[in-house]
């Protein structure tokens, strides 16, 4: 082939390529223009002014002391000049360092990202500018599709044309998701450091600037090391961009971060908040709760909650150490699904206000609230209802003599019920108070046979037990499931001289302007006879002083208190519910799956051993500094000391005596 022909061919190829390129570019341009016009018609309208996006008021949940516990929805908007300059620099350095230069799209960064996406398989490079992120957050889902990306890009271009850079940055900083329920930098600054956004220092700013990438992954309360590493990266970028000097970099890196502990508490136990939200959803439309800007004052006591969480955690850890190896390995291993669990609920006796709720070991592991939803057998913890009923129906008193003996109760159409004592032996004649303190099952069975189960259920209902209770004789031994909250509130009726207060968690609901929507009126209902109630309370005091829960006194709890232990068959549940004149607390310990609680030696763990120490540990701290107050003694009550076997005045032959509370009329 001659050179001339070759040149002609080459020339033709070049010009062909050129015209093809031209035609292709033209075609693509036309397609882009058509797509643009089609897409632009369905693009969402951009609000004007842009700060309208921060109009939605937040619903705030407060503790009883006024401390803000949580913010739902809404945003706290602050102008740009009330946001720490360090934070602005940090967020720009990490998210979009050419923010002040581009017009919505960082073309160079986009080209680089495209190059990496197409030519480096497995690697993905983000190129979204702050404006694009704002567009995405405001209008689009987080599903990564090309259509969404294109529409997001168009909206970003419009936002850049319509608003100044400062307006865009302000809008972005006020809506940016920062985790733990905080939306926008002002909320985040308060939630993490308990200070306004304006007061954030360099170290705090760099840490917070790392959150938008993944608020959960970099949550400093849960993953501090990871969050700290990201803080370092951000500081490095700030240094590279010339925002800070080397000495500032070092100082910020070494600075100790003082996190606001409130958020940590909430993060580790949101059972209470869950319960509050459930209560709210029963009363209000979710739209009002999450978008209405309500101010909800709850009965929550952060200090008691914190103490309750610590006591339960410590108590369960100690129990784990005592427990048999197969069980320990099952919950010390990788899966904590079968871990030893516990629940604790605290109710104020004179009002029914729920002060603390711990629904399990860790909210982050299981959100199932055992303090409220668990329906576990209370065992002997149910006996106070039986003894109250027996005193009322059978005209008995704590000094009445009963016989601890083998019992066989015939049931029509079923095999007879043969209850057994935990100790497997029988004590013979004994006064009722001691039978109660020692939790003797055969006595309880004899009493329920005489009163009938329905009367016992009636008493439990009067005290606020709402769970399904089966009218069978074994109800006396707690064979129908209840929750720790029910136990705490029903025992509060005994503490309160027979007056029942419905447990409540919401004190007051206001709208954003402070107008009251509802407030709780603390009404009490006279449910039990105060004199008989006191006789039962006195027996329950005996449980703590000398009975199955005497460990409480050994642990150093000195205030007047009463309660009852409960253990179920096979040691599947260990309970202790007890009260002082001011607080009623119920503790449950067990496995979610019906496994028994046993020590290394194979000894079953009872309520007195498993739950009572947790109760004592919590109550010692919760009532610290509280003056000693006795339960109110009705005027018609007198005390007398009797022989525990005969119920009569002690004689020379008497071995043991017990002080009992009896009616003046019975006083001889």
């Amino acid at each position, binding site marked *: 082939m001659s050179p001339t022909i070759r040149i002609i061919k080459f020339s033709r190829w070049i010009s062909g390529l050129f015209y093809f390129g031209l035609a292709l570019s033209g075609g693509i341009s036309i397609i882009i223009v058509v797509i643009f016009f089609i897409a632009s018609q369905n693009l*969402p*309208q951009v609000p004007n002014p842009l700060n309208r996006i921060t109009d939605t008021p937040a619903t705030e949940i407060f503790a009883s002391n006024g401390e803000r516990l949580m913010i739902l929805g809404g945003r706290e908007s602050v102008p740009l000049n009330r946001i720490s300059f360090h934070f602005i620099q940090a967020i720009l350095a990490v998210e979009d360092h050419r923010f002040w230069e581009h017009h919505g799209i960082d073309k160079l960064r986009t080209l680089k990202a495209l190059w990496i996406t197409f030519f480096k398989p497995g690697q993905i490079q983000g190129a979204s500018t702050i404006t694009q992120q704002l567009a995405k957050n405001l209008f689009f889902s987080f599903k990564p599709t090309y259509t969404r990306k294109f529409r997001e890009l168009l909206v970003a271009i*419009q936002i850049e044309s319509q608003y100044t850079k400062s307006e865009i940055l302000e809008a972005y900083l006020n809506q940016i998701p920062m985790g733990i329920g905080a939306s926008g930098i002002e909320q985040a600054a308060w939630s993490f450091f308990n200070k306004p956004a304006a007061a954030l220092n360099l170290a705090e700013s760099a840490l917070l600037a790392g959150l938008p990438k993944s608020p959960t992954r970099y949550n400093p309360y849960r993953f501090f090391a990871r969050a700290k590493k990201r803080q370092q990266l951000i500081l490095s970028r700030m240094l590279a961009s010339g925002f800070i000097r080397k000495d500032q970099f070092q100082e910020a890196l070494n600075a100790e971060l003082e996190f606001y502990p409130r958020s940590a508490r909430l993060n580790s136990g949101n059972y209470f908040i869950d319960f509050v939200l459930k209560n709210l959803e029963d009363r209000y439309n979710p739209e009002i709760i999450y978008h209405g800007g309500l101010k909800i004052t709850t009965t929550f006591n952060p200090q008691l909650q914190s103490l309750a969480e610590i006591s339960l955690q410590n108590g369960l850890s100690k129990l784990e150490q005592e427990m048999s190896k197969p069980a320990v390995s099952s919950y010390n291993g990788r899966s904590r699904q079968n871990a030893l669990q516990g629940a604790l609920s605290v109710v104020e006796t004179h009002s029914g206000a729920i002060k603390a709720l711990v629904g399990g070991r860790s909210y982050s592991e299981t959100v199932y609230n055992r303090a409220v939803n668990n329906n576990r057998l209370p065992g002997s913890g149910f006996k106070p209802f039986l003894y109250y009923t027996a005193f009322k129906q059978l005209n008995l008193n704590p000094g009445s003599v009963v016989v601890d003996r083998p019992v066989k109760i015939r049931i029509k159409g079923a095999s007879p019920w043969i209850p057994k004592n935990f100790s497997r032996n029988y004590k013979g004649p004994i006064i009722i108070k001691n039978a109660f303190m020692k939790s003797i099952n055969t006595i309880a069975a004899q009493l329920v046979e005489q009163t009938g189960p329905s009367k016992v259920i009636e008493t439990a209902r009067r005290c606020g037990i709402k769970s399904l209770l089966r009218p069978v004789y074994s109800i006396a031994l707690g064979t129908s499931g209840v929750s720790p909250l029910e136990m705490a509130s029903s025992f509060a009726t005994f503490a309160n001289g027979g007056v029942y207060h419905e447990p409540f968690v919401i004190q007051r609901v206001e*709208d954003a302007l402070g107008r009251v929507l509802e407030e709780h009126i603390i009404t009490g209902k006279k449910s039990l006879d105060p004199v008989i109630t006191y006789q039962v309370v006195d027996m329950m005091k005996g449980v703590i002083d000398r009975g199955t829960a005497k460990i409480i006194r050994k642990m150093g709890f000195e205030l007047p208190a009463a309660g009852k232990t409960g253990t179920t068959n096979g040691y599947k549940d260990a309970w202790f519910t007890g009260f002082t004149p001011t607080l009623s607390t119920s503790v449950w310990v067990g496995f979610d799956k019906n496994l028994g609680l046993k020590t290394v030696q194979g000894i079953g763990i009872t309520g007195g051993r498993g739950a009572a120490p947790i109760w004592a540990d919590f109550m010692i701290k919760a009532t610290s500094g509280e003056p000693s107050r006795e339960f109110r003694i009705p005027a018609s009550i007198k005390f007398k000391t009797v022989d525990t076997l005969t119920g009569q005045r002690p004689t020379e032959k008497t071995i043991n005596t017990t002080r009992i509370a009896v009616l003046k009329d019975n006083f001889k």
Partner: protein
Amino acid sequence: MVCMNHLSEPKNFRELACRFFSLRTAILFLICCSVLISELRFDFIERSLGTYLTSINQFRPKSGAIWEIGLHSSTAQKTLEHMLSHRQASEYEARKAETLQQLLAGLVPEKGVMISAQSFKKLFLKLSPMLSIELGSPYHLLKIFNDSRFVRTYFEKKGGLIIIYFLDVHNQVLEQIDIGQDLAQHFQKNDIAIKGTLNNLADFSNRIYPAALFFTVIDSLPKEVCEGIISEPRILLQTQGRINRIGISDEVLSGFIEIGYEFIDQKETKVVVMQAKEWAVWRLRKLLEQKLLHVNTQKNREKI
């Protein structure tokens, strides 16, 4: 000449190079570069697109997350306003009420109203002495008014009852007065007597006794018990007619039991309802039942 002839194909490499590096190509290249650089520098395409999109902004749909939140928010606000306006209206009515009867008449079931302790006191003092006695024992009310913790009063209509709660600053109920249906009607009519007989009043229909028997029993009771039963005899004395029968209510309201006195006048029969202390009524009832049994036994013997 060869270079200028752009329509013909280049014959050799020199001609091709000549065309490639011509002035025209250079200008074209510079124009392309300047367009590209100026776009990179001045973002004119984005600006034009942005301007266009801004111009059609108002014609586009209000869709997307932020508008949905806005919609939820405005719906929530409207619902809240509706709820609040109802509540505020009833509280305004309560505050505006000139008399306790007016306030009680305005109560809606399951929706209470709150007024200050002072307002309640004012309304209470406007009640006629007879009605104020019916509301509760004067000593009891004096005790409530004297309690420094008493700051607010809450009224609630619940299952036919009107309940008045006397509250402290934490909304803890210090005392409560339950007003039964009959007494509530009584209040609303601002009338001491209810037209009709005791048999028409459900609360009393189970325990009706002849007046003669009642007075026989009253004569045998100690003075303090009689005062517990009829704390204000003046009310009964002021009512026209004579007492024919008395009825004892089945319900205990905050330590009180209502007694209905059936009066027969020349024109009509009416019932005056008064509250009596629970413990006194129990004694009265016990004796009335004994006497009634005795009378019935005697009657039966006489028949035989």
